[in-house]
C-alpha cells in the first residue's frame, strides 16, 4: 500500500511531471514536493511524488556497506 518506487523526473509542466521508471513514462503530481527539477529522482506513490531521493545519501550508504567486509567496521552501524 505504501509502495513507492524511485523514478526519474524527465520534464515538468505546472503541478505535474513526466517521470520514467526503467523507460516507462508516468505522470506524477508535484503538489506535495518543492524545488524538484528535471533529472531529480523522486519517490512515486499513488500518482504523487512524495519526496526527493538523495543520490549522495544513497552513495554514502553503499560506501558504509562496502566496508562491512572489514570486521572492524560493524561499529559504524
Amino acid at each position: 500500500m505504501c509502495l513507492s518506487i524511485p523514478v526519474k523526473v524527465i520534464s515538468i509542466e505546472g503541478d505535474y511531471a513526466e517521470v520514467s521508471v526503467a523507460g516507462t513514462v508516468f505522470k506524477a503530481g508535484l503538489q506535495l514536493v518543492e524545488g524538484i527539477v528535471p533529472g531529480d529522482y523522486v519517490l512515486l506513490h499513488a500518482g504523487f511524488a512524495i519526496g526527493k531521493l538523495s543520490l549522495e545519501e544513497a552513495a554514502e550508504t553503499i560506501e558504509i556497506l562496502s566496508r562491512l567486509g572489514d570486521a572492524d567496521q560493524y561499529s559504524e552501524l
Partner: protein
Amino acid sequence: MKLVDEFRGSRVVKDLIRAINESATGIYRFMEVCGGHTAAINRFGIKNLLGHNIELVSGPGCPVCVTGTGFIDKAVRLSGDEGNIVVTFGDLLRVPGSISSLEKEKASGADIRMVFSPLDALRIAAEERSRKVIFLGIGFETTAPGTAATVMEAEKSGINNFYVLVSHKFMPPAMEILIRDGTNVNGFICPGHVAAITGSSIFDFIPEQFSIGCAVSGFEPVDILMSVLMLVNQVNRKNPNTAIQYKRAVSREGNITAKKMMAQVFEPVDMYWRGFGIIQSGGMKLRGKYNRYNAELLLNETIKDDCNEGECRCGDILRGLIVPVQCPLFGSQCNPGNPSGACMVSAEGVCNAYFRYGRNE
C-alpha cells in the same frame, strides 16, 4: 534500475548476514509495521538468511488489513446507487465485507473502478459531472497527503461531485498500543515511506519512553538486513534510538509541504482498526472546511466500522500474536483465490505473503 539494483547486491547481502550473525549474541525479536516490509521479507526469504535467535514478526502494517469490515460495507452500500461511481485502489476490491465485496458488486453491475491514484478519481469526476464519484481513501501517512492534495485540487477546480470515504490512519498510536499491551519485541523496523512524509522523529517516543530501538528502513534486501544489524547493535549496546537506515529518502523532519497539506485537510479522529478496536486519534477525518467532500454524508444510515470475523484470525495476526499457519483457515478454506479475511487479500497482507512465499515458519 537506479537506486534499486545497488541495494540488492549479493556481495553486500553476504557481508551483512555475516556481520549480523557475528554480532547477534543474544535473542532478538524485531517487528516490522509496514506491509511493504512484510512482502519484501517474505519475497526475498530474509528470515531464512538469519540465525534462529533473530525472529522477524509482522505487525499492523497493511492498511487494507487493518480497515474494518464496516468500511467495505459502506463502500458496497454506496456502490448500490446507480448515480454513484465508487473508485478504489485495487487492493480493496476483494476484501470481504459482512455481506458482499466490491468485486462481487462490480460483477453484478455496480460502477466500481480501480485506479492507482486519487487524481484518477478526480479526473473521472470531472468527466462524469452528473454522477457522484466516491474515492475510497485508505492508507497511512504515506497515502493521506495525496488524498489531501486531491481534495484541495477538487476545491480549486470547482469539482463538486467528488467525495472521499475516509479511512486514513496514523501509525504511531497503534505501535504504542502494541507496546503497552506487552508485545515482546526489542526493536521495530519502522516504515520508510511513512517516515518519508512524517520524518523519523515521530518514532522517537518508542526509544525515549519504552527503551525499544527503531530503525527506519528502506525496502530492498540490503536495506532490511542493514536495519536488522542496526537494531542488533542497539540492543547489544543498550542504546535504543531512532536510527535512519533509509537516508536516501528519510530525514528527521520529513516532507514539510506534504505534512502541511495533510494537516490542512484532515484532523485526528478515534478510528476502528481490525485487531485493535477503536484507537484514540488512530485515524483521520476531513476538517469542517472540507466536510462537503465527505462520502459519509451520502449514506442515509449508520454502518458500524467493526468486524465480525468468525474463525478468521486476521486480528491476532495483525498484532503479532500468532503467525498465519496457526489460523485454522489458512491455506485450506482461506487462500488468495478465496480469501476469508483481509490479510489474505492484499499483496502486503501477512497471510498472503506467507501463502505465496513458502509459509516459512
